[in-house]
């Protein structure tokens, strides 16, 4: 049995340290998914908390036979992100997404020396700006495949759409992202 599945079993039996371990193992994954989708670190932090609260309440419903725990966790996160997106659609129509987006990477790059790290950080910030201009369907597909590193079948399990749709969204998302980056003057090597 996978370590995550064992931890989940212990959590269901009321083992606090097991839950703590599970949270520490997956906080970064959830936070990154939320941050890449919303582009806002404060929102991403709040959403990550919400995700784990939901996971904590529904942990008993997880079955390892249905798939790996990270896929299930990603699926819960994505559903919550979609809810959040729908809930905040009206607010976004009045505010520009880019204006509302605090520059997490810029904060990081200022603290580090100008080397490869800073370059990567710069690219990360530009990518974030480009992601914000993608449609939510394409954005989540690219994030799950290329930033979260999920396999096609895992993306399919998370998005609950046919395989052909997954492939098409990922492909169109990548092409669109490259076009936006080209527009803002970023040309990947």
């Amino acid at each position, binding site marked *: 049995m996978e370590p995550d599945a064992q931890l989940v079993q212990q959590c269901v039996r009321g083992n606090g340290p097991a839950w703590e371990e599970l949270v520490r193992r997956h*906080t970064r994954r959830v*936070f*990154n998914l939320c941050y890449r989708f919303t582009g806002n670190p404060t929102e991403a932090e709040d959403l990550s908390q919400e995700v*784990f609260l939901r996971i904590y309440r529904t942990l008993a419903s997880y079955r390892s036979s249905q798939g790996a725990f990270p896929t299930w966790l990603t699926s819960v996160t994505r559903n919550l992100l979609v809810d959040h997106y729908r809930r905040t659609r009206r607010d976004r129509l009045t505010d520009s997404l880019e204006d509302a987006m605090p520059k997490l990477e810029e904060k990081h790059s200022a603290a580090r020396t100008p080397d490869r790290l800073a370059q*990567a950080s710069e690219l*990360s910030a530009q990518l974030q700006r480009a992601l914000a201009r993608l449609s939510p369907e394409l954005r989540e597909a690219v994030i799950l495949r290329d*930033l979260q590193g999920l396999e096609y079948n895992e993306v399919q399990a998370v998005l609950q759409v046919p395989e052909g749709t997954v492939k098409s969204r990922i492909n169109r998302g990548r*092409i669109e992202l490259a076009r936006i980056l080209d527009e803002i003057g970023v040309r990947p090597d």
Partner: protein
Amino acid sequence: MDWNCTLTEERLSEHLEGSLSHGERAAFAGHIASCVRCRQLVANVGGLVNQIRQLAWIEEPPQLAPKILDATLGPRVSKRGWEWWVDRISVLWQPRFAMGVATAAASVVIIFHTAGLTPTKLKKADLSPSNIFRAANRQAHLTYARGAKFVNDLRVVYEIQSRLQPEASPAVNPIQKPAPQDQSEPTLRSPEQKSQTEPRPGRSQVRSGSMLAFVVTNMFTRSLT
């Protein structure tokens, strides 16, 4: 296979993932070789995918995990004052750590003792390698000499040696037996003469005697315990 720009766009990710069939791959390559726009597109998207896959994950805020744990498990009591310190130094009470410290301390004591150093009277010159070697050499000889003296001074060793002596002497050097005519000579002799006529047992003899005595003592002690 007939390939065009629309197909190149549609199958671009499959090309990047390496999931095109052999024929499709050849047609794809043939098309981008002749179409500048598609070649540029493939280069851009390929480069982008490579780069974003290499991006490290952003670190979550440090307070996030504790917040989640507080919200799910309830606020945990933060330890203060002496409790915090007791928690921190509890590692010192672990047997493995204590054994490690004890071993290190014993090693230091042995090294200092062997090198003949006294920590309270330690001088800078004492720490030079030649001085340490000299002191250690001296200490080793002294220890050996003390040990040999200790063994020789044991009553049981003395008794064993004295019993062994009469039997061992003729066997060791029968030629040195005093001649019959010497018996008429005065018994009083100077130390020099004595040393010439009755040579002291060799060092190897003493050592073997000591060793034998040591072994017997050991056996005797063991039988007592």
